[in-house]
């Protein structure tokens, strides 16, 4: 098993104003899985993603990633896990506006201590792979939304992560670009990458092998009663 969440709880605030964002969430993901998580706004999707991505720590429960207990780690160990084991794709791309596509993709390699030449070679290859081999020196402002997201995916994959986490990756894209991104995810998954994708679009979720649902912080395998619209 690649990762396992056991009874994860995450609350925001204290006392009367406490918000329960995750309630005893359990999840098991195997190597090579492609999972979509659906849920309405405010249901705890991003909170779950942050916990999975080691950006946030659960209040209780255990999280085992790649055989390591994440719950016991300190800040520096967590950033190391994010660097080497996790690839993030965000709804709003999160590219650095002042850097070229190549430098954006090469960014994680700086922190991994890779030499400049090697970084640029690998970043160029990664961009080639997402179909942007011609646009290495373009700045984000010179790229379309779909292209930006593909740069972001190339960046997420540059360190060969164990798991690709995507939070509404098509949320800011038109349908055609969204389809291209889904195509890319499927290709990466076929090559063996484990993918966990959050979406509230059922059409997008269909691309995954398995769909899970989250409602009011509760994660389950099947469609809950309240989620008529999604």
């Amino acid at each position, binding site marked *: 098993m690649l990762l396992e969440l056991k009874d994860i709880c995450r609350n925001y605030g204290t006392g009367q104003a406490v918000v329960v964002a995750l309630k005893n969430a359990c999840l098991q993901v195997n190597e090579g899985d492609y999972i979509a998580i659906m849920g309405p706004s405010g249901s705890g999707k991003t909170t779950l993603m*942050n916990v999975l*991505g080691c*950006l*946030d720590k659960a209040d209780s429960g255990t999280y085992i990633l790649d055989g390591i207990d994440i719950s016991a780690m300190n*800040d*520096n160990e967590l*950033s*190391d*896990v*994010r*660097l*080497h084991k*996790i690839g*993030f794709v*965000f709804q*709003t791309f*999160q590219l*650095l506006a*002042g850097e070229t596509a190549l430098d954006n993709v090469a*960014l*994680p390699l*700086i*922190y*991994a201590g890779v030499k*400049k030449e090697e970084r640029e070679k690998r970043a160029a290859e990664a961009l080639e792979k997402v179909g942007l081999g011609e646009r290495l020196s373009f700045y984000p402002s010179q790229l379309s939304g779909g292209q930006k997201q593909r740069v972001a995916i190339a*960046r997420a994959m540059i*360190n060969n992560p164990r798991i690709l986490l995507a939070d509404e990756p098509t949320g800011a894209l038109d349908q055609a670009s969204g389809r291209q991104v889904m195509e890319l995810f499927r290709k990466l998954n076929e090559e063996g990458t484990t993918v966990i994708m959050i979406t509230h679009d059922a059409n997008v979720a269909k691309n995954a092998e398995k769909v899970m649902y989250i409602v009011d912080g509760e994660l389950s395998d099947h469609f809950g009663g309240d989620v008529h619209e999604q």
Partner: protein
Amino acid sequence: MIENIRLSFRGILSHKMRSFLTMLGIIIGIAAIIAIVSTIQGTNEQIQKNLIGSGVNNVRISLNQGDWEYDYSSGIPDGIVPVTDEQLADLRKIRHAENVSLYHQRQDYDGVYHAATSLSGGYVMGIDTSYLDAAGLQIRSGRGISSEDLLHFRKVCLLDTDSSNSLFQGEDPLNQTIEIRGEPFVIVGTVGDKESFQPLIKTMTDYYTYSGEKSGKVYIPSTCWPVLYQYDEPEYVVIRADKTENMTAIGKDAESILNQNISGDYTYKAQNLMEQAKQIQQLSQSTNTMLIWIAAISLLVGGIGVMNIMLVSFTERTSEIGLKKAIGAPKKAILIQFLTEAVVLTSLGGILGVITGIILAYLISNLNGTPVAISVPASVFAVAFSMAIGIVFGILPSYKAANLDPIEALRRE
């Protein structure tokens, strides 16, 4: 690290206006300091040169009555005798004294003529063969005073540049004849300072300091002195020191040798030019210390400005920081990135400040004639200091950046 510096430069260039405004405080502070230091140093060097002569390092000792230099035209005081051979031998033994010469001197207001032109207020100097070297003078044309001249009481003389100009107005004085106290003297040579220097005359004090030199000197063999003036007139002493620093000590030693058998109201005193120069320098230094303080305050304000701008720029850079942390940048990397940016920014400000300061110093020099001496150590120190400002005032913003919560940072869109 090089990577970080490169990135910092790119960041600075992509916000040219903001970076410039941030650096402005540093630029102004450093520029002010460099301009002030360069002007002080230039002025000090000038003062030292003017008072002491351009590296000639000669110490003159004269007889004083009370606080005033004694004028032998009013006769030889009782009990004052010429310098003895033993005293001369002792003077030659003073450490760091390279040459010693005895000479006579008289300011003769109406004694020197070429035809009808008078050298009013000029000096007549009775010298021997050692004088020119001891006093740091150089033969410009002709020859100096020789032992034969002294031995045979030859009526020959040397002119310095000023007396030559006054008496001959640019004409060649060599082999011409002038009259000193009615006696004809043939000019056999002209002399000048080893290094020429232009005294800076801005105040009346300066004027009085240099007016004597401006009126010119005529040098004759010392053996002719009694013919023109009087027998057994005590001599002045000039000693050439090996280094400027040793002038004061040599002056003290010479005073104690010459004052051995003297009593009453009279004493030999060395002209302590080093000390005079120091006093004037200290005066200019203390007024400028205040200016340095003002510049330092401006640097402090500059540093706070850097900190402020850096703190403000986080608001627009939170998502950058959040993203970097999310993809695995450790705290240390973010801290170093921001600290490097601060240091690169302030160092750049420091370098621009030094350049501006140098330009400013030359501008000031053009406006009021003070000389400039650019101090390399001061410039290096200024840049190092602005680097330090970058570290001191960058540490708080950098620490804040490093500890930013990536979740919060990424949410804030």
